[in-house]
């Protein structure tokens, strides 16, 4: 089998024997058969099948988003382990370690920036990946369970980011985590207890830092790596990714397949390189934020949770905390988890937005969300005052259940109106409602990030930044 005629020299024969003891196949495959075997034999590549449907290679199907999340995870692991060599998880040390890292350690600032921006990018990428799966019908049978695995991965990514947020122990970290864990207290009966366990005491302190560190560097990454492996394995067991189709046209009977090497692997490589280049450039240009040392005596004004929680923090300004921090997130999560078991519209798997009608409805829902959400925020700020109008009721009712019921009524009305007007199926209308809620969530997050200044007053973004800088 080995090409014996070239290996005349004993030394080359030895090298080639060692090489062959590690890699059983030639480095560069010469035929499709060898290309397939190479995938099967390789520990890393064998997460892929040896051939893939040609159509799934289109960038406009997956946008490479799942792969990007995996690449970012790798960057995070490498830079995270590097940071561990420079960082001590104690209130007396942590902040100084970060300062030292940024000023005295070669490439310390760059490594910190890479870790910081990759963590944030991973949230965005994982969220977009979820949307891609939703809008191409990739959550339906037989992929229901992998959808749930994906949601768990997204939650873990949020957890990793939130626990990492505290570690620099600056003002930003301290108060964002105080406010973020303050939400937990509103869970009925057990909330206070859970909060105390998470914090390791009544307030954010040394025990909190140690808790978060352990979660951040061990428990959450291990859980994520295990679930990611399962996620990848499941994709193959569920028959690969969905095959893209044009609306109203039946899928091809005969799927044409190409070898994974080079067709898929090459594309993955391009996505990885572009992503790494982008993250590197960004990290060279923009430093991860670091404010003054954490001071438990002085809260900054405004004190905001990390940006990915600002949608919920914005809800808190409009609803009783129990509704904003618990009821609405739980309902949303429950709906997302149950969705694949109730939406079994298998005809549209692989079609972006299900149908031409589905596309028009989604677009219209997005417009309504884009205009309606800011109007509702403004109305609640300046006009609506349920607490004042219904003074005899407890605030849980006047500021919680009443507005919640109004929002639910609005949603039901929207559903009914859309369904009738478009003569649409239930599934198309559910999709439009999802788009409406998604747009509302994004708008609320944007309002929370850029339109809330000192005292959480509504103001223009340039006023917010000048007020905060002046502070």
């Amino acid at each position, binding site marked *: 089998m080995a090409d014996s005629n070239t290996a005349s020299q004993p030394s080359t024969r030895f090298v080639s024997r060692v090489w062959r003891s590690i890699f059983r196949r030639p480095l560069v495959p010469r035929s499709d058969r060898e290309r397939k075997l190479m995938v099967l034999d390789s520990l890393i590549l064998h997460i892929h099948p040896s051939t893939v449907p040609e159509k799934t290679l289109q960038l406009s199907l997956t946008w490479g988003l799942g792969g990007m999340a995996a690449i970012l995870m790798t960057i995070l692991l490498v830079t995270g382990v590097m940071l561990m060599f420079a960082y001590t998880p104690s209130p007396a040390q942590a902040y100084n370690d970060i300062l030292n890292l940024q000023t005295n350690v070669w490439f310390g600032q760059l490594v910190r920036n890479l870790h910081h921006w990759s963590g944030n990018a991973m949230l965005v990428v994982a969220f977009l990946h979820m949307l891609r799966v939703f809008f191409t019908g990739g959550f339906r049978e037989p992929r229901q369970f992998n959808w749930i695995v994906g949601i768990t991965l997204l939650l873990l990514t949020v957890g990793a980011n939130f626990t990492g947020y505290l570690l620099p122990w600056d003002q930003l970290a301290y*108060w964002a985590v*105080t*406010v973020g*864990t*303050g*939400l937990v*207290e509103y869970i009925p009966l057990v909330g206070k207890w859970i909060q*105390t*366990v998470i*914090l*390791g*005491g*009544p*307030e954010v302190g040394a*025990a909190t830092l140690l*808790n978060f560190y352990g979660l951040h560097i061990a428990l959450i990454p291990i859980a994520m790596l295990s679930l990611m492996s399962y996620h990848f394995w499941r994709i193959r067991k569920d028959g690969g990714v969905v095959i893209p189709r044009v609306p109203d046209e039946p899928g091809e009977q005969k799927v044409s397949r190409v070898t994974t090497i080079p067709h898929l692997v090459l594309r993955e490589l391009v996505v990885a390189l572009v992503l790494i280049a982008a993250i590197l450039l960004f990290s060279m240009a923009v430093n991860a934020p670091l404010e003054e040392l954490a001071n*438990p*005596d*002085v*809260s*900054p*004004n*405004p*004190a905001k949770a990390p940006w990915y929680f600002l949608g919920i923090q914005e809800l*808190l*300004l409009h609803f*009783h*905390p129990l509704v904003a921090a618990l009821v609405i997130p739980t309902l949303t999560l429950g709906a997302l988890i149950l969705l694949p078991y109730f939406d079994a519209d298998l005809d549209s798997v692989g079609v972006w937005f299900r149908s031409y009608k589905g596309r028009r409805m989604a677009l219209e829902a997005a417009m309504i969300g884009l205009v309606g959400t800011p109007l509702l925020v403004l109305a609640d700020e300046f006009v609506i005052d349920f*607490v004042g109008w219904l003074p005899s009721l407890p*605030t849980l009712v006047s500021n919680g259940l009443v507005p919640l019921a109004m929002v639910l009524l609005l949603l039901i009305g929207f559903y009914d109106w859309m369904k009738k007007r478009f003569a649409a199926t239930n599934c198309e209308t559910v999709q439009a409602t999802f788009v409406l809620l998604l747009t509302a969530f994004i708008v609320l997050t944007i309002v929370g990030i850029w339109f809330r200044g*000192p*005292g*959480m*007053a509504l103001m223009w973004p340039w006023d917010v930044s000048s007020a905060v800088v002046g502070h």
Partner: protein
Amino acid sequence: MADEQKQTKLGSNPTRRDFLKLIWTGLGVLALAEAGGMAVAFSLPRIAEGEFGGVVTAGPVDDFPRNSVTPFNQGRFYLSRLEDGGFLALYRKCTHLGCAVPWEPTEGRFMCPCHASAFDAKGNVLNPPAPRAMDLFPVLIEDGIVKVDTGTVIQRDKFDPSQVVYP
């Protein structure tokens, strides 16, 4: 072969096997529950003596004029002496989401910088979003010395005269 199986299904052996299976399953569940309980107990908060959470000596009664609010940063509370000479120890943690609430002497109220909650000198809510009055710590007055037990947090909806401690 088939006969044998039938026999073991009906004979006395299966009962023993079923019994053992039950025991094994039971022991397995018990072991899992124990491991879970251990994990929870292990992660319970560990508060060291002498830290915030112990009894703080604030000082002699006469050091605190009527109608005054004195901050104790280490103890994380304000000692508020009311008009009638009574004391309240207000936990400075905002009841909304936990920011540290500063006392604004010129305004005569506590004003939370985070989301604009305001409280009066008794801890009552003047301005939402805070859902309830500021929490209290028990005040002890021994031999004219005011002490505050920061280990016990008292939650309340609003001020009530029974909460005041008199020298």
